[in-house]
């Protein structure tokens, strides 16, 4: 059976009722357009919100935590077997240093699953503003590595993040903190470390994460500055942030590091479970709406094809009388449905792209999101693929049932009925 013949018959039938065809195709176009727009916008927004936290969170966070002594003295006593609740030995006062950090860093860098490693030193300080002391946390970072792995520069809203490395005793202040201290870029500010040491730091930039609580407290200095503030050696670090090539491996890797290095290691999934859930549900809703639209347009196609079959009973009968089998007739009507689906779908993808790029142009400014200028749109080709495939599948099934009916038309009944 020549496919060309089926196509030419389908085309003739389509053109004979081109207005109906157009309405059906517009239905598909509309639903695909909305599907694409909705998903692009929704996931764009999702990615933005997740990015706020997830991009800045290490996939595996290695740190040291203060523990109370696991074995209390009573446990060593022969009488102490069974239950006892006496815990008199409190944690020792020691810094949260990751022991043997240089060796750990080196072996992490050699791990093939690891994209990059960025060390961090946490320092508790007070910002001195006249007579008032404000709570603060300084993060001593390797500015270059931090930028490569966690897009640090995107959150530095004023000044250059590299000054952190180039200017000695420099600080990038949290925007909230800067406003409270009334410090401008280029000013010197004074801080007090938890050990009571007073230090002057030069402000080289502002940092804004979009999360106000963080911006009020957190500031960045270089690793060396932080170590100096604490009076520690240059191998001292409190946190190691690991970014993996594949985020899904994080729980596995974290567990492994916990065992090998005898440290605390938390994976991103555990640390930020709520974001995953939110994202999944928002995506689910978008899909549900998009697919509902498609199914509705599928019913439209179904109706129109059904009507066409009633109108074209004679044609079907005569095709069968002259030697076209039921299968051929079925193919003709499925071809009609698919044509509507494919063309409607293609236009839908195109318009979906147009509308989402339109939304992409709409200004969207908020203090919470310093890097965002317009509404976020996700141009992931996956959604176009899903939209395209789904339009073909829906129209196929919308065409399948009417075409089966057409294939069962009995030519004798139609021809003799006249």
């Amino acid at each position, binding site marked *: 059976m020549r496919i060309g*013949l089926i196509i*030419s018959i389908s085309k003739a039938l389509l053109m004979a009722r081109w207005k109906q065809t157009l309405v059906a195709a517009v239905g598909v176009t509309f639903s695909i357009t909305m599907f694409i727009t909705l998903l692009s916008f929704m996931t764009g927004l999702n990615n933005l919100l997740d990015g706020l936290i997830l991009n800045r969170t290490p996939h595996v966070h290695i740190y040291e935590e203060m523990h109370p002594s696991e074995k209390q003295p009573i446990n060593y006593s022969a009488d102490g077997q069974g239950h006892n609740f006496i815990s008199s030995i409190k944690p020792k006062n020691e810094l949260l240093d990751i022991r043997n950090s240089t060796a750990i860093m080196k072996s992490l860098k050699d791990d093939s699953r690891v994209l990059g490693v960025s060390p961090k030193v946490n320092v508790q300080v007070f910002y001195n503003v006249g007579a008032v002391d404000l709570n603060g946390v300084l993060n001593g970072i390797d500015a270059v590595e931090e930028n490569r792995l966690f897009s640090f520069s995107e959150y530095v809203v004023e000044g250059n993040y590299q000054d952190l490395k180039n200017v000695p005793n420099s600080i990038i202040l949290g925007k909230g903190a800067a406003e409270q201290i009334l410090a401008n870029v280029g000013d010197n500010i004074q801080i007090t470390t938890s050990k009571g040491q007073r230090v002057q730091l030069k402000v080289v930039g502002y940092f804004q994460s979009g999360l106000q609580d963080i911006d009020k407290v957190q500031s960045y200095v270089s690793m060396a500055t932080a170590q100096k503030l604490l009076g520690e050696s240059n191998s001292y670090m409190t946190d190691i942030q690991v970014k993996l090539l594949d985020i899904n491996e994080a729980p596995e890797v974290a567990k492994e590091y916990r065992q090998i290095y005898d440290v605390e290691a938390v994976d991103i999934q555990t640390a930020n479970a709520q974001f995953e859930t939110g994202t999944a549900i928002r995506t689910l809703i978008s899909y549900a709406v998009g697919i509902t639209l498609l199914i509705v347009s599928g019913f439209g196609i179904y109706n129109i094809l059904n009507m066409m079959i009633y109108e074209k009973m*004679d044609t079907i009968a005569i095709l069968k009388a002259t*030697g076209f089998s*039921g299968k051929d007739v079925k193919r003709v009507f499925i071809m009609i449905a698919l044509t509507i689906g494919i063309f409607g779908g293609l236009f839908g993808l195109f318009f979906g792209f147009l509308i989402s790029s339109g939304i992409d142009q709409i200004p969207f400014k908020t203090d919470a999101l310093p890097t965002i200028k317009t509404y976020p749109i996700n141009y992931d080709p996956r959604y176009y693929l899903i939209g395209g495939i789904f339009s073909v599948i829906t129209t196929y099934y919308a065409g399948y049932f009417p075409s089966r009916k057409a294939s069962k038309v009995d030519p004798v009944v139609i*021809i003799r009925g*006249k």
Partner: protein
Amino acid sequence: MSSIVLQAKEISKFFHDPFDIQVLKKISFVIERGEFTSIIGKSGCGKSTLLYILSTMDTDYEGDLLIDGQVMRGKKESELARVRNGKIGFVFQFHYLLNEFSVLKNVMLPGLKLNQLSSAEVEHNAYEKLKILGIQDEALKMPNQLSGGQKQRVAIARALINSPLIVMGDEPTGNLDKKNTEIVFEIFKELAEEFGQSLLIVTHDNEFAERTHRIIEMEDGMIIRS
């Protein structure tokens, strides 16, 4: 190759709705190559019913039907469609041309479906058939631009496109006036006598039937003259 084109062996047919009636009662006959046969009979005698069984479109019957020596019973729907496509040409009372296609394409469709010749060859054949029927000038028109007689001639051309073993007609002149009936009859006669085409025409026009080679007359589901 046998000269028997079509053989009906004790074909019976019942209608079950609204109550059981036997419309055909053990009909048996043979049609040979080149025969121009007509079936006549009063309205309701079962002649059209018989024709639709012979055309393989109606499969709900008892007895056996052989076309070109092959038993039609038990064949699948798609196989029967192939038989209709290649071996049977059908002309109806109403022309049943497809208004979506040009005259030429209408004639070509069964040929394209048969898929034995290239579409250029099918087109050439279609022109030949239209020429035999004297309407080659109308080839590129749409069917609704033709007169009733012309349409029926196009339908005949369509029936001939695959050089069928037998052309069947269900009152092909029933809707035509005297003059066009005459033209169509002459065409059938020419086909039978010059091209050796077997024809089986159901008609209630006795005058038309008298001039065919053979008359099968039916009454109450039985052949009373053959």
